[in-house]
């Protein structure tokens, strides 16, 4: 079965640079979620999109923005990168309960390292 695809898998950036992370949800899933996971920490919800509109916002810094495109893929844009932004960034997708389950399917993550 198709899974959530994230690219790139690894990214190294310097402070103050920008980064763009991409997410391709499972086909027919209408909701995309972004999470940030620091070393040894639990995933922190950043933002989500339902049918290309922002549906929920979590602890996303103002330096970050995201959007969902007409083909349902999503991009997380991160500017003025800081050392503390180094983390795993996960994208997840779901059908928002249409199937009866609210399970969120996670991608493999993008490991961002800011030097």
């Amino acid at each position: 079965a198709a899974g959530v695809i994230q690219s790139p898998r690894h990214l190294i950036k310097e402070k103050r640079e920008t980064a763009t992370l991409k997410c391709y949800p499972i086909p027919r899933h209408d909701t995309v979620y972004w999470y940030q996971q620091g070393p040894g920490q639990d995933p922190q919800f950043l933002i989500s999109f339902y049918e290309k509109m922002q549906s929920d916002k979590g602890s996303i810094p103002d330096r970050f923005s995201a959007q969902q495109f007409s083909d349902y893929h999503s991009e997380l844009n991160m500017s003025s990168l800081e050392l503390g932004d180094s983390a795993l960034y996960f994208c997840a997708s779901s059908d928002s309960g249409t199937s009866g389950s609210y399970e969120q399917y996670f991608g493999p993550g993008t490991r961002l390292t800011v030097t």
Partner: protein
Amino acid sequence: GESVGLHLPTLSVQEGDNSIINCAYSNSASDYFIWYKQESGKGPQFIIDIRSNMDKRQGQRVTVLLNKTVKHLSLQIAATQPGDSAVYFCAEATRYNFNKFYFGSGTKLNVKP
């Protein structure tokens, strides 16, 4: 924000034994609970979920128990195998939005052969 946490950060069990991973939550509006397994370098993988109108739900070798009175849930893994070694997270969502998950701190399960 919501508060979901775990009692034990690390759990070591012998292969073949049963494992119990605990989780506490504080929001009385929590209505949906999920357990995820995360292996090193991978994304969280869904294990089992439970709605607040249930006390128990069973899957393959896993059982989730929910005690709403004390706001506690647990994941029981029967006949733990080396492949079960991972970090386990509980997450919860309120009745207002089942699509917004709040994750608790993970418990690392080490299975000794």
